[in-house]
């Protein structure tokens, strides 16, 4: 693919650009949520979009998450392509009924007659000292919902193309954005409209010793651990799942088979987290290749701590990944 000019953007700018392009390209696209209009979003992701595309295309809603999801569902039923923002993924909980009972089910319960091309964007994850509830990683709830797709980009360049694919997709897509990456991640982002396929994992680094698997904000943590390990002569593979549902099991299993050791990294609560699903898939599909148990590096089985001083202990970091790596290498 010929890539046109690129500029260095952060995640906020890349997503803003994707929304801007989608609004310009398809008049059925609507962007709404709390504070997305005049304010441009609490993280400024939607900055300038209302001024450019008008108040009917980019608008603020009353403060009500279930209402926002319900509105999105109805708009999609009526032929629109809503892109709803939930201010923090931890605020999706009041809308879970809309998500589980309807957003994920309508295509199935209408036997294909009613598809809901809805995108729900929400920032998630910790590492930036937010108040209670603001750092939750609820992707497992969403992945456990048949009928929705779940995408979690790890870089600005990926985010832009994946979000445009999500908006084009005929099914509902949750697009979770790691808060830590909003201004922390910067990368060369191509200009103009481009899409990246959903449902594909990507191998971002290759090595023979072990495979680290994660997504979103954990990719840079895995890469940092990989750098340190390399200095000690240990080369690891790093897989960015990127789309959790539908899962690219082939890429995942191929990477694990090649190294025989796997560590799954996710910042949600450990039990029942999406990493548990990955570990199970590896057990089902690559057990013969394993030379050590699959380890998980995850949050603790407790709410994400709102206490800044110890927050860093909950969220997986490179040191914890390296500790797990030592364990699987010496098993």
């Amino acid at each position: 693919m010929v890539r046109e000019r690129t500029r260095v953007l952060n995640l906020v700018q890349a997503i803003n650009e994707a929304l801007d392009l989608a609004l310009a390209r398809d008049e059925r696209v609507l962007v709404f949520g709390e504070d997305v209009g005049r304010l441009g979003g609490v993280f400024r992701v939607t900055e300038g979009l209302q001024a450019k595309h008008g108040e009917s295309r980019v608008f603020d809603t009353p403060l009500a998450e279930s209402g926002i999801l319900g509105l999105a569902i109805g708009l999609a039923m009526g032929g629109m392509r809503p892109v709803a923002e939930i201010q923090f993924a931890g605020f999706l909980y009041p809308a879970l009924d809309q998500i589980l009972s309807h957003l994920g089910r309508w295509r199935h319960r209408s036997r294909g007659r009613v598809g809901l091309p809805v995108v729900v964007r929400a920032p998630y994850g910790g590492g930036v000292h937010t108040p209670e509830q603001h750092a939750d990683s609820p992707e497992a709830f969403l992945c456990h919902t048949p009928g929705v797709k779940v995408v979690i980009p790890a870089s600005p360049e990926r985010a832009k193309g994946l979000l445009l694919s999500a908006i084009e997709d005929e099914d509902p897509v949750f697009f979770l954005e790691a808060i830590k990456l909003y201004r922390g991640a910067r990368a060369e982002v191509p200009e103009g409209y481009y899409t990246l396929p959903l449902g594909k994992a990507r191998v971002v680094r290759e090595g023979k010793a072990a495979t680290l698997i994660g997504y979103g904000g954990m990719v840079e943590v895995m890469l940092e651990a990989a750098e340190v390990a390399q200095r000690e002569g240990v080369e690891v593979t790093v897989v960015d799942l990127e789309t959790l549902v539908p899962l690219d099991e082939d890429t995942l299993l191929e990477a694990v088979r090649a190294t025989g050791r796997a560590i799954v990294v996710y910042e949600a609560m450990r039990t029942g987290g999406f990493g548990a699903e990955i570990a199970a898939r590896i057990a089902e599909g690559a057990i013969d290749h394993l030379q050590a148990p699959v380890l998980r590096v995850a949050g603790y089985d407790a709410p994400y701590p709102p206490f800044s001083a110890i927050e860093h202990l909950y969220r997986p970091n490179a040191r914890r990944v390296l500790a797990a790596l030592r364990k699987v290498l010496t098993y």
Partner: protein
Amino acid sequence: MKLKPVAYLERGEFPLEEGEALRLYRAMRRARFFDEKAVTLQRQGRLGVYPPFMGQEAAQVGVALALGEGDFVVPSYRESALLLAKGLPIHVLLLYWRAHPAGWGFPQGFRGVNPYIPIATQIPQAVGLALAGRYRGEDWVVAVSIGDGGTSEGDFHEGLNFAAVFSAPVVFLVQNNGYAISVPRSRQMRVDYIARRAEGYGMPGVVVDGNDAFAVYLEAKKAVERARRGEGPTLLEALTYRLAPHTTSDDPSRYRTREEEEAWRKKDPILRLRKALEERGLWDEERERGLLEELEEEFQRELALADQAPEPRPEEIVEHVYKEMGPDQRRAHEALRRGLHVEEAW
């Protein structure tokens, strides 16, 4: 402010043209006919659990007939009459309550959606659907219905508030039948009329005698016209009663008295309207018999159509989850199609 239910029949008033009144009656009688047949079919094991609406025909049919062809209905589970009166074929509705895939995707072009089982969740969705019409330059109105119990849910509040804020062309029909399964209205809320809540959202609230087809129909028409003119939503509360159990699995004798049921039976919306028609010489025993024969014929024809629907294929379990099957659905689909359990095909 004192609210007073709008009513015509009990005062002997006849505010409709004769043709319109007859149309209402026939649609209500047809709905009742369906309801009775559905309960019988359930008893014979030829239908799944079924929630009868008997007694609420005026509320549902009154609203359905007040809508234009391009308008939508977004019903709760007790609203088969709303769907029928809007034009959903009987065999599709039978297949829906048979939990047969062929009844779960209403015919292309039908302006209504599957009944909602979770309570009140359809309310904000109806608002979105109404706004979609505005974006598309169409003037469709959405009638969304709910029971009195459903008004206790948060989604009811969120939906009404959204509708008012966005001035959405929606008619909210609350069929206040006095009970949320067994919980009486007095344990559900401490307001006299649910329509009173409309003021708190900034929209008109109207109470009608829900067993008075004229009252429901005329007030619904006003609300639809108002919505179509761009003046926003209306909350229409129909005071009514379900003469039957909550579902075919429910026993209302545990929470209602026979006296109460008898008192409401006297206000049966179909008998009331029939009496009014008879008094004006528009209806009689012979016409009634003719109509029932017609309905029986239609029902048998539709039942035969429903019976002809092929058995669902096992692999339909994983169809229509996504527009394109993902790898997990594909694997399961292949296994089910081959008559295997997915574990065997792994």
